[in-house]
């Protein structure tokens, strides 16, 4: 049963019961969420969770099997061109025409974005992403980071109000990742753009997103602000000892047994309050087990372990 | 020009063979010869049409030059011409020599509406390409209406003449040269043609007689021609 939601003025994107099936495989399953004006909306999930499929559906690259997408209060498929006019996007790798120069690429896509690309506009954009001095060079000669910046320039050339970035930091070096992060923050803060950004890296999203949606296997797991979602009191630590087998045995026969998570990659994983870490250390020392490593982990995988504890999804990440 | 040579041969031997078995026949041939003798040279313009079932060719302009005793040249006015090898006889202007053949009276026949005398000429020697030559002569006007020439190598050719304005010189307005196309090999196409012509069509193409037709328009007679033209 489809429920039509009345979109408030501040709601930029409204997705209702979105489903996409590729033959027998369900990539996105009954997904609903909304993005408010001015949000930096983090779209978080493992590779293959359905993030890209969802973003592609929001850009009309993929036709949904079921569900409804409204952007700016209008049905996306009924007002496709008007809506796309207001969207700038970089989807996965920033692929452009390699045999054309940065300037030519930007000019071509500006024209397709519905604006008349003057030299001033093009050069301003290239200036913004730091490629002005490489304007005449063919893209073939560009590094991954430069291509990514050109992709962003293309996404922004027509001054859209909604920006969608699908895995924008893929393949970038730390400096490139930081640049993208700063750019997103700048777009949101200074230029009042609404940004939807997807990633499989928790810390990346955590640093910039005002709201976060976590999906897994096409399902929505949880949605909220970073503060709401990340309970810092609980953490997973990674333990490595002189005798891991013995350590697991001792832990399993102690009060720690409920904290013990299945081992992965030869490491023992324990979920606990951060204050309990020294106590755990003391316990192991008392058992005459040498501690080689005792380190809090902060990854999406662990976060999933936390929020899905006891739920069926846990199998995906612990197998 | 090979065609020309063969053609010369046909007429050369046609009359060389006459040795007076029948005085009447002799006289007739001599009369025809004398008539043709008034022409020292001529140039003529004409149209040549090739009518061979498996050759589609447009009508082409030709220019013909003749000079006594046996100089002859056929010149195309541009274009490509296809003639059967070994014998299109286009000129009847060089019937001069009258030795080495045996002439036989073979009766009468009508060519169109014209009554003609048939004379067969047999070469005396064995070393000629021509085996037999038959002439149909219009006795009243001393004109050769038709000739059939059998050759050793190149089959049998038939030539018919129609006269008009230049009959007094013994020069035809039209010459039809016929030959049996059955013996000619059909061209084997090396082109990429998907459609195969069926056997019936092939037979039809083969069975037909081939014909070359020259229609002369203007003759210029005895105006003098430089020898250089025939080189």
């Amino acid at each position, binding site marked *: 049963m489809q429920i039509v939601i009345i979109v408030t003025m501040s709601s930029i994107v409204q997705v209702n019961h979105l489903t996409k099936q590729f033959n027998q495989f369900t990539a996105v399953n009954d997904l609903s969420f909304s993005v408010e004006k001015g949000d930096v909306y983090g779209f978080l999930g493992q590779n293959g969770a359905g993030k890209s499929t969802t973003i592609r559906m929001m850009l009309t690259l993929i036709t949904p099997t079921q569900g409804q997408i409204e952007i700016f209060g209008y049905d996306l498929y009924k007002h496709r061109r008007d809506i796309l006019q207001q969207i700038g996007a970089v989807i996965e790798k920033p692929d452009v025409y390699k045999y054309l120069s940065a300037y030519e690429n930007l000019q071509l896509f500006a*024209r397709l974005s519905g604006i008349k690309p003057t030299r001033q506009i093009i050069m301003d954009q290239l200036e913004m992403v730091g490629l002005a001095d490489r304007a005449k060079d063919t893209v073939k000669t560009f590094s991954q980071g430069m291509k990514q910046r050109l992709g962003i320039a293309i996404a922004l050339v027509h001054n859209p109000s909604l920006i969608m970035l699908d895995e924008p930091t893929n393949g970038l070096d730390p400096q490139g990742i930081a640049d993208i992060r700063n750019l997103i923050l700048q777009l949101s803060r200074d230029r009042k753009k609404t940004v939807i950004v997807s990633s499989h890296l928790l810390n990346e999203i955590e640093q910039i997103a005002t709201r976060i949606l976590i999906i897994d296997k096409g399902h929505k797991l949880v949605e909220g602000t970073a503060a709401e979602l990340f309970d810092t009191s609980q953490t997973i630590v990674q333990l490595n000892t002189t005798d891991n087998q013995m350590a697991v045995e001792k832990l399993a026969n102690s009060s720690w047994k409920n904290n013990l998570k299945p081992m992965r990659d030869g490491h023992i994983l324990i979920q606990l309050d951060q204050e309990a870490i020294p106590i755990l250390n003391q316990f192991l020392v008392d058992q005459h087990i040498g501690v080689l490593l005792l380190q809090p982990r902060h990854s999406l995988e662990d976060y999933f372990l936390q929020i899905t504890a006891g739920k069926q999804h846990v199998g995906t990440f612990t197998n | 020009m*090979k065609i020309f040579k063969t053609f010369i041969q046909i007429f050369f031997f046609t009359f060389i063979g006459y040795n007076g078995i029948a005085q009447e026949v002799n006289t007739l041939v001599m009369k025809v010869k004398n008539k043709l003798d008034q022409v020292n040279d001529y140039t003529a313009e004409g149209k040549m049409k090739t009518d*061979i079932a498996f*050759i*589609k060719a447009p009508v*082409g302009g030709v220019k013909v030059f003749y000079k006594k005793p046996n100089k002859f040249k056929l010149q195309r006015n*541009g274009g490509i011409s296809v*003639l059967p090898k070994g014998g299109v006889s286009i000129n009847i202007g060089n019937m001069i020599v009258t030795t080495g053949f045996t002439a036989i009276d073979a009766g009468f026949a009508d060519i169109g509406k014209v009554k003609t005398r048939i004379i067969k000429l047999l070469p005396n020697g064995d070393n000629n390409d021509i085996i037999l030559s038959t002439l149909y002569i219009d006795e009243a006007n001393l004109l050769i209406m038709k000739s059939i020439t059998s050759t050793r190598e190149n089959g049998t050719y038939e030539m018919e003449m129609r006269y008009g304005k230049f009959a007094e010189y013994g020069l035809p307005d039209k010459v039809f040269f016929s030959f049996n196309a059955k013996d000619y090999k059909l061209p084997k196409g090396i082109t990429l043609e998907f459609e195969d012509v069926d056997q019936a069509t092939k037979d039809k193409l083969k069975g037909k007689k081939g014909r070359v037709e020259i229609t002369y328009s203007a003759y210029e007679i005895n105006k003098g021609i430089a020898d250089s033209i025939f080189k």
Partner: protein
Amino acid sequence: MWVHLRIELYKIFRKPRTYLAFAAITALIAVIQIGLYVDGKEYTEFVMADFANSFAVDGKILNGYFICYVILQLLLIHVPLLIALIAADMISGEANMGTLRLLLTKPQSRTAIVTAKFLASVIYTLMLLIWIAILGLFLSMLVFGTDDLFIMKSSYVVIVKESDVFWRYAGAFCFAALAMVTVASLGFFLSFFAENSIGPIVATMSVIIVCTILSTMNIPIFNIIKPYLFTTHMITWKEFFDFKVNDANEAIVGSIQNPGRIIQSSIVLLVHIIGFAGSAILLFRKKDILS
């Protein structure tokens, strides 16, 4: 639409691959022309070996018109590869490069984009043919001069009067354009299904090779499908070089022996073009872009 077409043409003519095709044609034609210029007499003697036993052919057979016929005969079998190189790359190449998804997130109608792509490959095909005409016909006319056109068909010889040839070439090139656009639309259609350009290029050539073999083989079971294969009709341009004769076996200048065959082949090719291009456009409108 005009904007899209201009953009697509801009992209085609900025690709080095495009010029490869023009260079290949230039080289092929130059090889044929130089070969015939140097050894043309032997070539004509070889072609007419059987015929020359019985007939004396007089005149300038090796003229520009004849050279162009030889070029078309040899080249039109190979040009499809050069067309496939671009047409089969139109969608798949962009999918492979990753630009297709960027292109389709722009506020443009998909139908307009894909139609412009098809039209651009058609224009490229026509430009290739114009290039063949410039080099194969006009340059040959300039270098070798003109005269009657002498053609050996599979069972007869045709000599086309010089003044009657040129319009036949105009017709033949128009028909060849139709045949090559069919190749372009096949390549374009196949490019829809792949995310790399090698696949559709190879597939296009394979389809053409298989169909050409079926068209050439004279086996009853294949004869049933022959009339429906576009390859059977691709060589109908040759029909322009055969004329009617009257009862006296006189050539009728300006006539065509089998105009019906040309019309029929044109219809078959047009149906193929509409089928291939139409399906590609219709399918593309609903295509999920996963590249």
